[in-house]
């Protein structure tokens, strides 16, 4: 059950996202198409992070690692002439999901600050791995010769088609995510954040569920990475840099930690702000910093949380 205000905001927001290409076409500003596609790609990453961060209480500071793995899973096959998205995208999800399982298996044995540091360390390790492999562009990265190909069905070189592919994936993610957080699995994840000793006392081996959530979030992060290289038509290890993990986390916090739609709002707010402010000054983060502090102080559930709440908080 969500409040009316939230449902309306959600529908209006999604409708607006759906209409962006139309506006871009009418105003002949293809730039908007590019900007909002980028926003939605980061929204996918932010939603996946919030699954473990907000719902599961696992403060992973290395989410960019999965973004990076997903990006490499597109760029490396492309480098060797494999351009099929049906190969690249599933590969991106499987590899980043497996990486998340491995990283989770180690880091979930710790908690608190050590957990944050370990996830950060793993991501930085992958980053340094990325900048050290000369064959795949090292720290310069490499150009993506072609966007992922889907037979003749979907032509991602067409910005509009690509836009609606990303839009469709975001909608699918929100729909599946909504099922997941209310299903048994999601309830276990949320309750484990609420009170882990209690979970164990009533008979849940929480580790396996948290690990699975970690893997799922990693796989979706990988998909976002695959989309991102297609968006920029470029691969760079900087997708994995810790500052990128920080940005995704900021989107989640800004939009509403522990909510499904908040991170989407956060991605919109963050990237629009970046776009507008960076036109004024290169030090745009000087503005972002205090803003974030305000959000944390006055809106515990971020921008999404500012919308009036329904009687039961679960959304």
């Amino acid at each position, binding site marked *: 059950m969500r409040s009316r205000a939230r449902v309306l905001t959600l529908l209006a927001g999604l409708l607006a996202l759906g209409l962006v290409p139309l506006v871009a076409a009418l105003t002949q500003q293809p730039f908007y198409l590019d900007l909002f596609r980028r926003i939605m790609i980061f929204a996918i990453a932010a939603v996946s992070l919030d699954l473990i961060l907000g719902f599961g209480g696992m403060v992973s500071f290395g989410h960019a690692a999965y973004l990076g793995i997903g990006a490499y899973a597109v760029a490396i096959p492309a480098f060797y002439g494999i351009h099929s998205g049906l190969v690249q995208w599933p590969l991106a999800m499987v590899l980043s999901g497996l990486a998340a399982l491995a990283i989770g298996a180690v880091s979930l044995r710790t908690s608190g600050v050590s957990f944050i540091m370990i996830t950060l360390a793993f991501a930085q390790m992958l980053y340094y791995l990325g900048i050290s492999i000369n064959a795949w562009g090292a720290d310069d990265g490499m150009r993506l010769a072609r966007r992922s190909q889907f037979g003749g069905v979907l032509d991602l070189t067409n910005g509009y088609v690509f836009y609606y592919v990303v839009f469709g994936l975001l909608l699918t993610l929100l729909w599946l995510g909504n099922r997941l957080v*209310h*299903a048994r699995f*999601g309830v276990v994840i949320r309750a484990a954040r609420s009170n882990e000793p209690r*979970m164990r*006392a*009533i*008979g849940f*081996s929480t580790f396996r569920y948290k690990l699975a959530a970690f893997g799922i979030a990693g796989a979706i992060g990988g998909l976002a990475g695959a989309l991102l290289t297609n968006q920029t038509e470029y691969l760079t290890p900087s997708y994995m840099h810790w500052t990128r993990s920080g940005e995704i986390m900021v989107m989640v916090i800004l939009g509403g930690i522990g909510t499904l739609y908040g991170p989407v709002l956060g991605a919109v707010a963050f990237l629009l702000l970046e776009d507008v402010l960076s036109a004024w000054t290169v030090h745009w983060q000087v503005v972002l910093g205090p803003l974030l502090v305000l959000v944390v102080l006055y809106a515990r559930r971020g921008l999404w949380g500012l919308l009036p709440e329904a009687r039961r908080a679960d959304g």
Partner: protein
Amino acid sequence: MPTAEPLLAVRGLIKRFGGLVATDGIDLDVAEGETLAVIGPNGAGKTTLIGQLSGDLPPDAGSIRFAGVDVTALPAPARSQRGLARSFQITSIFREFTALDNVALAVQAHAGHSFRFWTPAFTERALREPARATLERVGLGARADVVAGTLAHGEQRQLEIAMALATRPRLLLLDEPVAGMGADESQRMVRLLRELRGRHTIVLVEHDMDVVWALADRIAVMVYGRVIACGTPEAIRANAEVRRAYLGEEVPA
């Protein structure tokens, strides 16, 4: 499984915190169906004992057999699956969830695996109905949809019991369920415990001696990590050492 074997058999249980020996070689048997009260002054090691029985604390030495199986090495969730349930001295609930959700989670933990990603758990009748029945049983039926963190203290303590009961345990470990309650609340809790007694096997840690005399089939007295006496209420009442070490300062029996 020989019927003569007690449901719970504890042997030589030792737990150290640094130099402090919190439980110092505890031996304890609990027969099926009985209510064993554990009493003792603050810091005697009662909660530490419960923690080791439930699997939350690994003992440094000793063994725990439950229902004929050595469970010493089993973690808490596995023990819960075998029928051990505990309540916490310091209330431990899912504060952001409703009372009914809290209990439904306990049901869910014992209703197959939770790798289910599609059906909303909070509408699953197989989880909701037993949960609701359990809430009714502890007297919280009317409060099912209240967010647990906003329940009165006494109600939260009742909810603790409901969560333990919802796992359909063979042995209930209750750590001071009556502590910190007002007169009304504590009366209601004692009534509930009286109802559970006999139908469940219970290890009850309790300070209030009126409650203990009212409910216990046997009493174990702990002081400084040791069980200094264990027996029927009459025997404990008559035990000189116990009167000196514990009862003397609490209640003039």
